[in-house]
């Protein structure tokens, strides 16, 4: 690590993992984002950590493969017709 790691401006890894979500959600102020990216550029552990969080998000997005059952659809259509008649 360079001398930059000694300056008070330097983000520690422990701090890094707490602002990963703000970084990915685009809500870090510009100055914080610079500190985040400066740290990321030189820290293999945090590069892996960020990669793992991205992978976690991607895998969560794969939990949606599913399809509507014909029974559910016809039951709803029946409910709609009942509602129409009642109204």
């Amino acid at each position: 690590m360079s001398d930059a790691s000694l300056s008070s401006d330097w983000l520690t890894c422990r701090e890094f993992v707490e602002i990963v979500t703000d970084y990915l959600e685009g809500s870090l102020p510009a100055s914080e984002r610079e500190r985040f990216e400066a740290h990321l550029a030189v820290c293999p552990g945090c590069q892996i950590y960020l990669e793992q969080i991205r992978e976690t998000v991607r895998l969560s997005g794969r939990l949606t493969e599913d399809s509507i059952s014909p029974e559910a659809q016809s039951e709803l259509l029946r409910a709609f017709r009942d509602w129409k008649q009642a109204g």
Partner: protein
Amino acid sequence: MSTVSSEAAAFGPFANDLNLVASLRDGDEAAFLSLVSSYHLQLVRFAQLYVRTREQAEDVVQETWLAVLTGLGRFEGRSSLKTWIFSILVNKARTRARQEGRTVSYSALGVAGELNTELAPEPAVDPGRFLAPGHQWAGGWASPPASWGSIPEERLLSQETLGCVQQAIDQLPPLQREVIALRDVEGWPPAEICQVLAISEPNQRVLLHRARSRVRRALEQYFAGEE
């Protein structure tokens, strides 16, 4: 806008939704089926976070659709139809979860109390994995994470891995579970999530952060155990 129309209600960001509502009130079945095909599965997936079985989830969603139909007259286009429908589901599902839920239920202090509990500070990573204060590199990794880069794609996307993700989400405290399900599973924009759950954007991000950190930890343990 420079002119005031007598049909002002048909303008604005949710004009399409107001038109759709008008069709539904006219009894347009195609409009209803298109609404169902847009949201039914998302609603069922979301309801499953609260109850024990798929059948119970379908039940809550059925109840939600009926409430949507009977409440159509009250929809004024102040939010999108989508967030309005999901707000109805959240209310029904939370009530159902209190009665017969399968997992951690809400704080006895209600949603506000639950929010306080879940916003309490909690480290994303076990503090023991960082170098202790006093060390030259205090706060740096003592035990850095191992890359998942060499895990083959088919193993990452296997039913077993996805099952681990689902199980980790199921075990989250309720608000974190709701937020990660809408943000990462369904891919909603944060503003819509805040509307449906009635929370602020900063709080939504803290809940998301806690949830993602916990699911990552579960995956890390799972992959470490497989080797």
